[in-house]
């Protein structure tokens, strides 16, 4: 799954675009050769340092877009530029995103083992630093994933992803499986880390409420097409696309209502 599967690489016009795609189309063929298109000629740009929200319902193609950017899915046509080296991802289900057979400290050391030639102690040192920066105590390192709560596990995922401070971090519904109170704390943590390290983040979610305070910009995805994008404040006040209106209404967001 190397990154090199760029069909037609091209350099976007402005230098502060980190990831850009033109006419990106992705389709899958299931058993009886029926092809279903998931991304249909998508154009998008992600600017360096911003938090871009990607909203859409299940089946809209938001995870596929994430995987396409990461090179885990080959796209049929279009042009894609990914300026970030080794982008990292945080997954939705905290129970399957950490290797159940390994200790937390082993998992967090893995990016250093693969990418750097730091010796054991320095790696351990770096892990305990990261653990504290994601608000976890050092002895968490000796535990196994199944001994941690959902919130703790998600913090470990974030820590692991940031070990080699990547330029791009993709978070695929990182908090939707957590309790409300824990959700707020994790989002708070991601916000502060983003401020501290300045990495670019693609935040995928179906909850427009959380995205309102979290994202700099939001793109609405429906059936593989971007129906609208813009700053949350403007978009929520006067949505242009019908689908955006429906989403806002269903989430109980109308001008003035909580």
């Amino acid at each position, binding site marked *: 799954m190397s990154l090199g599967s760029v069909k037609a690489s091209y350099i976007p016009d402005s230098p502060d675009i980190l990831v850009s795609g033109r006419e990106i189309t992705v389709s899958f063929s*299931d*058993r*009886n*050769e029926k092809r279903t298109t998931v991304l249909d000629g998508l154009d998008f740009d992600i600017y360096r340092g911003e938090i871009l929200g990607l909203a859409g319902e299940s089946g809209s193609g938001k995870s596929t877009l994430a995987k396409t950017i990461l090179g885990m899915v080959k796209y049929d046509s279009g042009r894609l530029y990914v300026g970030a080296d080794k982008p990292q991802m945080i997954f939705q289900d905290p129970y399957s995103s950490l290797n159940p057979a390994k200790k937390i400290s082993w998992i967090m050391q893995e990016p250093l083992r693969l990418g750097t030639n730091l010796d054991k102690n320095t790696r351990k040192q770096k892990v305990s630093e990261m653990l504290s920066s994601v608000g976890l105590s050092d002895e968490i390192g000796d535990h196994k994933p199944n001994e941690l709560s959902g919130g703790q596990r998600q913090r470990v995922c974030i820590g692991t992803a940031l070990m080699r401070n990547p330029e791009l971090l993709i978070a695929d519904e990182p908090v939707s499986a957590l309790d409300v109170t824990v959700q707020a704390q994790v989002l708070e943590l991601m916000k502060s880390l983003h401020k501290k390290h300045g990495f670019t983040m693609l935040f995928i979610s179906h909850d427009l409420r959380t995205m309102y305070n979290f994202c700099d910009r939001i793109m609405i995805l429906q059936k593989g097409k971007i129906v609208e994008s813009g700053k949350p404040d403007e978009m929520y006040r006067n949505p242009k696309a019908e689908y955006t209106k429906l989403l806002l209404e269903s989430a109980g967001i109308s001008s003035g209502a909580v």
Partner: protein
Amino acid sequence: MNNYYFKKILSLLATLLVISFLVFSAFEIIPGDPALSRLGTNATPERIAALRAEMGLDKPFLFRYFLWVVECVKGNFGTSYSYNVPVMSMIGEKLPITITLTLLSMSMTMIISVPLGIALAKYAHRTFDKVGFIANQTIMSVPAFFLGILFTYIFGLVLHWFKPGGYISYKQSIPGFIGFLIVPAIAIAIPKCAMSIKLLRAAVLQEADKDYVRTAYSRGNSTMQVMYRHVLKNALIPLVTFWGMAVADVIAGSIVIEQVFNIPGLGRVLLTSISNRDYPVVEAVILLIAVVVVLMDLVTDILYRRIDPRVRRNEKG
């Protein structure tokens, strides 16, 4: 849907072709020569050469294999070197024996293991379960031929329920034929039953934790109703795979059982024709066994689709 089956059958044929080639080349390696085996000790080089030519063994290996495949496709499997009887008639005679033995033992396995498996699951984690489990494990560890010897001794010689070695051909009397095969079938079925019970119990316990079982209870179903109406069908899925493989295992295992109970089934034909280097018969028997094994795979697949509609659309798990 049918292009899935078309591809499946195509791959089955490919598997058969590869197996037949392997068997053909196996005989190039194994020492011994059918002509010599036919002529015995007073074979002389000239006579061996003459017989080999008659058997067509003097032609190069690949040519012989190709010729054989062409003949097979036309449905003519050649004649046996030892009995010069057409291979098909010889095997045709033995097939009903092995099929009956397999069907008897498999049906016994199914009839006994389903209720017992569910009962064990129902009373799981209680003394009955533990005792049942140990009995299950012990039965599973008994080799079929040891069971065969024990049965022949106890039921045959002591209790005289059946005449050891008293195989009656189906040509003479069908009831006698089936009557005799019951005890060997039990000897085969018992270890298979033990394994089925273990698998079914595990599957039922696994399904019992699933959400739809809670929904069934919420509608007012009793435990038994939930077990038989909801859980059983889902729990059968892993069992179907095991039974598919078990049939292939029973046929291979019947070689030993036929030896203990002196039943002239396919197992015996395979063994004797291997030692007589009776190539056409060995090829045909192995192909037949391979067809059954591979068919079982197909049948399991179909059963899968009958039981689990989810599989119908996407590729089997």
